[in-house]
């Protein structure tokens, strides 16, 4: 176990370093210097040159990467030239709300998809199973933002239960003061996730139901309830752990669309706004953090999987 952990951590570290290099190079090739955006289209070449010199953009790529790397290790994500403040501060300010959205929708999605998939497998080909499969197929093919617009149309505009506008407070506590306004964004994010999770959960449960130990459990005379709760649920839930680890980037991508659709002042909206403002340090930081979260998510998922399933031997 310890050897495996060390090796996995080593690979993860290499992957993270690779990510840092790739994201840095990508942005460097696309936009060697933000000078033109900062100074405006009418800036003189001399002004651009002196701005580049002042901010270190005229140095070699290696030197710039070195500075970037050492800044990163000190927890410094760079300076947002558009918003005139450190990116780290911006992120600390906006991360709680975005994190809450992702986390809450993930919990809702798992809480719905897990029982739903198991129910579908147990009642295979029943009316409930067929209609759940059909709904999953539709929502699986629907972009997250369209789910959001559909929810706005039904619950905000037609029924008038909630406001279509979400609180503009960018702090989590401020937004939670009007928690009911966050229901639609969370449901929109969760719906897309449920559509894909329940498909996996259903097929995983079907696989487990065909196993010999289920037959043995039934042959022993256990009631259906005991067979399902003791033998089916635990074994069929294992793939979900891997799936959650893998779905982090999708979830964060969804956050961008949802925050844009509902005009929520979180990291996703910051990313979209920074795109049009060419605020590359923000883009770089967001891409990097998401990528590192993905690596960590996969690692944690693998470790959780081995902890919950002794049959998986790590070598």
């Amino acid at each position, binding site marked *: 176990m310890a050897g495996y952990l060390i090796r996995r951590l080593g*690979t993860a570290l*290499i*992957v993270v370093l*690779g*990510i840092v290099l*790739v*994201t840095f190079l*990508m*942005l460097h090739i*696309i*936009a060697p210097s933000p000078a033109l955006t900062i100074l405006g289209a009418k800036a003189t070449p001399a002004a651009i040159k002196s701005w580049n010199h002042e901010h270190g953009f005229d140095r070699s790529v290696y030197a710039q990467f070195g500075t970037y790397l050492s800044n990163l290790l000190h927890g410094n994500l760079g300076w947002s030239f558009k918003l005139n403040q450190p990116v780290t501060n911006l992120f600390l300010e906006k991360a709680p709300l975005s994190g809450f959205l992702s986390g809450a929708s993930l919990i809702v999605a798992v809480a719905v998809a897990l029982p739903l998939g198991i129910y579908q497998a147990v009642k295979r080909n029943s009316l409930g199973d067929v209609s759940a499969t059909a709904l999953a*197929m*539709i929502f*699986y*093919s*629907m*972009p*997250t*933002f*369209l789910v959001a*617009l*559909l929810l*706005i*149309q039904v619950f905000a*505009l037609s029924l008038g239960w909630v406001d*279509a506008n979400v609180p503009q407070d960018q702090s989590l506590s401020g937004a939670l003061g009007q928690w009911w306004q966050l229901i639609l964004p969370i449901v929109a994010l969760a719906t897309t996730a449920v559509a894909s999770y329940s498909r996996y959960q259903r097929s995983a449960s079907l696989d487990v139901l065909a196993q010999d130990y289920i037959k043995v459990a039934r042959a022993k005379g256990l009631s259906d309830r005991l067979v399902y709760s003791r033998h089916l649920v635990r074994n069929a839930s294992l793939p979900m752990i891997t799936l959650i680890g893998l779905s982090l*980037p999708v979830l*964060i*991508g969804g956050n*961008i*669309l949802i925050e*844009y*659709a509902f005009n929520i002042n979180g990291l996703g909206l910051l*990313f*979209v706004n920074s*795109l*049009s403002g060419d605020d590359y340090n923000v*883009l770089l930081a*967001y*891409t990097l953090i*998401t*990528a*590192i979260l*993905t*690596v960590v998510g*996969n690692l944690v998922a693998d470790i959780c999987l081995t902890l919950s399933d002794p049959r998986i031997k790590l070598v």
Partner: protein
Amino acid sequence: MTAAIESPLPATPGPTSSDAGDITAAASSGWKLTLREFTKNKLAVTGVGILLFFVLFSFVGPLVYHSDQLNTNLLSTYQAPGGGYPLGTDSNGFDVLGRIMLGGQTSLEIGFIAALIATVIGTLWGAVAGLLGGMVDAVMMRVVDILLAIPFLLVVLIIAHRYGSNTWNLSLILGVFSWLVPARLIRGEVLTLRVRDFVSAARVMGGSKTHLIFRHLIPNAMGTVIVNITFQIADAILALAALSYLNFGVHYPNTDWGSQISDAQDALSNGYWWLVFPVGAALVLVVMAFNLIGDGLRDAVDVRLRKR
């Protein structure tokens, strides 16, 4: 094969004719079997039907149903469905039905081209990594791991913002960043194929690596490749919709389904539902059609592999 060995004498009355029949059946049974299994799958056939409808709708539709998609008509904006406009008009006075046809062309074209690019790159990368193995394989797959960890939507957004906005650029951007999953799939397939006897035979006969890849490995992994391409198209159409929803897609006079939804979302609160939901339904139906076809093909190819 074993059956042929166990019966040294022809058991059938007409040896020559039945032998010939058997050989042709064996030669073509693979893909015929796939097709037969596929056509038995009602959902998959429905998917083909939906797809055919939208291809005709987008590419032949404008020839039958004429509407001006170039000149704005500010005297008839936001007309409700009915009258001369079956699906109403948008904020520029464009006919919505004609606009959905025009947007469908872009969405389908970019979906196809992007998926093709991704599959070609992914297939080659996976086949080379799988065949060479060892250090080369390890390095090539770590590259895939690294790129796979970087969120697709973020990268594509950053690059599309800089270089996007026409069909070819967007296809290239979406294609170049989505070959990772096919690369993994094909590598897995090649790892099992390369130790099979016919590949060893080809190698012993002096076949070069290129020959092995193009004549033996890729043709035998074709089932996986084709199934993957269908899902890739669905994903590319969705990704394009996300890009254009955030206003980083194609621009006037061109349009695609995501941009149309994006342009119309503010109009939703004014009750102009026809600007969002018809085009949304088209988007969902087309993506669903590709997913259904992909599911059907996967099952059919699976059956073929099992029976072969």
